[in-house]
């Protein structure tokens, strides 16, 4: 894996944690009182945070899956070369 991609993965992980923060922020910062109807800001933060979590998680999972796929193909090619 290229070193740039490793740092790119770190930025995706940071985006994932930003999504979790957004999801929890209305209750941590207390602009949303528990038990009351959700205000517009809370709804926006929950939807945006949820979307960010989903995007980042999906990116991480798919990246890992394709990286494993590439690694398996490289290993197969290497073993085929050594057999020849």
């Amino acid at each position, binding site marked *: *894996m*290229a070193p*740039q*991609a490793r*740092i*790119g*993965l770190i*930025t*995706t992980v*940071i*985006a994932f944690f*930003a999504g979790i*923060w*957004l999801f929890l*922020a*209305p209750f941590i*910062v*207390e*602009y949303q009182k528990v038990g009351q109807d959700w*205000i*517009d*800001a*809370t709804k*926006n*933060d929950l939807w*945006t945070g949820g*979307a*960010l979590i989903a*995007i*980042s998680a*999906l*990116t991480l999972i*798919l*990246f890992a899956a*394709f*990286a494993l796929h*590439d690694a398996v193909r490289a290993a197969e090619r290497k073993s085929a070369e050594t057999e020849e």
Partner: protein
Amino acid sequence: MAKYVIGAAGALLAALVGAWLMLAPFALAYQGSGADWADPTYVDFWTGLPLVVISVIGLILYASGLVEELRRRGIMPRPYATPAGQPQEAPGNQGANATGSENNMEQILLPLLTAMLKDMQERDRERDGAHAGTPNNVQQTRSAGEEGSVRR
């Protein structure tokens, strides 16, 4: 290769989400224009701005990883490609860099030196041919030929 495309797409979407977060308080009007910023506005703006910056950095990194991969597979040419006859160095082979750059210099200078040599030989041959008809200048021609020319 697909992993870099997915990473870049994810980073682009995260950057768009960050941009939306910066605009949302004003777009959804839970922040009145001209009024002091409320807590949700602070949270959204100061989460959105770093998110945009980080995601753009991630996008650039994934894109550069993709470009590197394309160059490694030979799909995209390298900006400073080595000459066709010279074997390419392995990316991790840092120790041989000095020798590699010397070889590059030799490869660049070799055609120039060959052309110069050929030119000098042609000039010598022309001079020999011109003076061959005049017997008085045979000695002079020989000494002139020996002076600055390269002979095989």
